[in-house]
């Protein structure tokens, strides 16, 4: 369990409505600081600036999807160590398991409950080394 509590979260998501809900959920319910990135190709730069505790990636995004972005992050020293949680409506259990085995910290499936989302993230955070 990391020494400090989960506070800064960066969320990469192309759907503006969901961006807004997640931001409200994490800020209002979870009392966290949130950076939302709508363009996945700009995500690594944003993360480098924002320095999040944890990154949430949407799976299905145009141009660069979540898993591809995740692999890019792994190649960059400034983002390779960041814990990543996937949030997706699509994948089957096997795909999620595969991501976890590749090094993802956890997965959250859509639709999620905005009431419970901060709690779910903190539970994943608590299991990190």
């Amino acid at each position, binding site marked *: 369990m990391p020494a400090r509590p989960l506070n800064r979260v960066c969320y990469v998501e192309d759907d503006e*409505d969901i961006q807004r809900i997640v931001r*409200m959920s994490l800020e209002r*319910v979870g009392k966290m600081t949130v950076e939302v990135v709508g363009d996945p190709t700009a995500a690594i730069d944003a993360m480098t600036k924002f320095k999040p505790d944890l990154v949430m990636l949407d799976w299905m995004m145009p141009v660069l999807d979540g898993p591809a972005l995740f692999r890019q992050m792994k190649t960059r020293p400034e983002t390779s160590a960041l814990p990543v949680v996937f949030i997706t409506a699509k994948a089957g*259990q*096997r795909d999620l398991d595969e991501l976890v085995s590749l090094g993802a910290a956890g997965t959250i499936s859509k639709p999620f409950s*905005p*009431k419970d989302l901060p709690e779910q993230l903190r539970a994943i955070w608590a299991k990190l080394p």
Partner: protein
Amino acid sequence: MNAPLADSATEVRNRADPRQVLADRVAQLYRQMPIAIVATFVAGGIATYELTGRFLTDLVKIWWAIVVVFTVAASALLLAYRRSGDKVGTAHQWLRWLAITALGNGASWGLAGGVFFRSLTDEQQVFLAFLFAGMASVGVPVYAASWPIFALYAAGILAPFFYILATYGNRLFIEIALLVPLFYAINVAIAYRLTQVFDSGYRLRHAYGRLTEDYSVLNQRLQGQLVELGEARRQVEASGRKLTLFAERSPIVVLELTADGTVTQVNHAAEILFGYAADELAGASVKRLVRPEYHADFDRQWAEMVATRQPATGLKIRTPRRDGIDLVCEWTVTPLVNAEGSLIAVIAQGRDITAQLEADRMKKEFTSTLSHELRTPLTSIIGSLQLVNSGVLGDVDKEVLDLTQVAERNGQRLLDLINDILDIEKIESGKLTLSPESIHIDELVRESMVLNKGFGDRFKVRFEFAGGSGWAVNADRKRMLQVMTNLLSNAAKFSPEGGAVEVTIGETGPNLKVAVHDRGPGIPENFRHRIFGRFTQADSATTRQKGGTGLGLAICKRLIEMMDGRIGFDDRAGGGTTFWFELPRQKV
């Protein structure tokens, strides 16, 4: 060589029916009777004429009368014989009558000798002796078919004559008398020999008759077998034609191949599907119909099939059509092995599944789209409403809140329906995979009750856990929670307000049984048999009142069965229903 031939002749003779042979001999005797009758009558007439008027006239007349009576009697016997029906069965009887007649005939001549001889002149005596010798000789051909009858007949003539001559007191006559038995013996011997010749002849005739009969029976049987063979050949030809027709008109591809994979025959469907004419494919390797990059795989599978002689099914092979477009066919390959165990041909039947694979791919894509494109907007809808309804954004007007709660609830219902449809689709297409782990059943039940507490509150129903156990099951945690959620929410929906839903854990044999008991109205009779079917609810009004998709129990049943368990329900004593499932238990 002679001995076996003789043996076989004897054997042939012995095959004759003895009754038939006797009947033939009797018939021969009766055929000769007219000679005896005529000879007796004529010779008797001459003798009577010669002797009449000299002496003993009355006696001569009596003797003539005897000859006439004999002639009439013998003729009557002959007539009776000729008219008789069954000459084989009664042959013995006819032979006996003939013997009596022959003896009478002979004795009548003997009588003439005994009575008249001494009174005759020398010339007359010579005449009579000559007559006796002649009559005795006539008997040889007449009675040749039965030497004992001849012996009786000749004895009848010669015995009295012998006696007269022997006692005449004349040396010459005594010498003649001594010649009579010799003469008699020679004639009987000749008759005996003739009888044997007749007998053997008749036996041979019958034996060969029977052989001919056997031969004709054999011939008939052969003829019958020839007819059967012809019929069998026609049937084989007919099934051959039928088979050819089946292959030729079949909508699936049929190829006949040799053991080394050379095509020998193709049907019309193959020509149409692959775009090659039959004689372009025949004689070439079947690998022309396999994409080159799969040749190695093909060779391996073919070698295995040829080695094991086992048919193979469901082989999917990608084939380049003549115009270069790829097809995928599913093949059933059957080696034809003859009685000696050698491979004589290989029959390959193929079905074009290109369109089916495309349809499967599209279905998968559709399911994926349904999953993503419907759930993403629902995430926004339900998420927004949840944030509003939770109060974190501040107080909301009561009436607005009522409506946003309705919207959230129905959004959730829509989401449940989508999830259930996706689940049942995954289960039925065999794509649902379980991740079994050892689960402590007490913990699972408690967790499910906590998760569904909110749902229970909505219907003002409590969940109560009545007793636990130290058992575990090997099951998929997420899917087990899904099953429990279904059973608990069903129970809550149908329980009276303020009631309790009890959950118990028990054991039945090697299984662990989890039961959810409610005090609801029970399951209507007409609904019981289809309660685990798809899209089933007792009545459609229920859906509107209580929510639910009608897929929940169908999914539960399939999930529990995938985990080697079973699911069911019973009426609960005192009213209500108990839904239960059983899973093989593990000791923790």
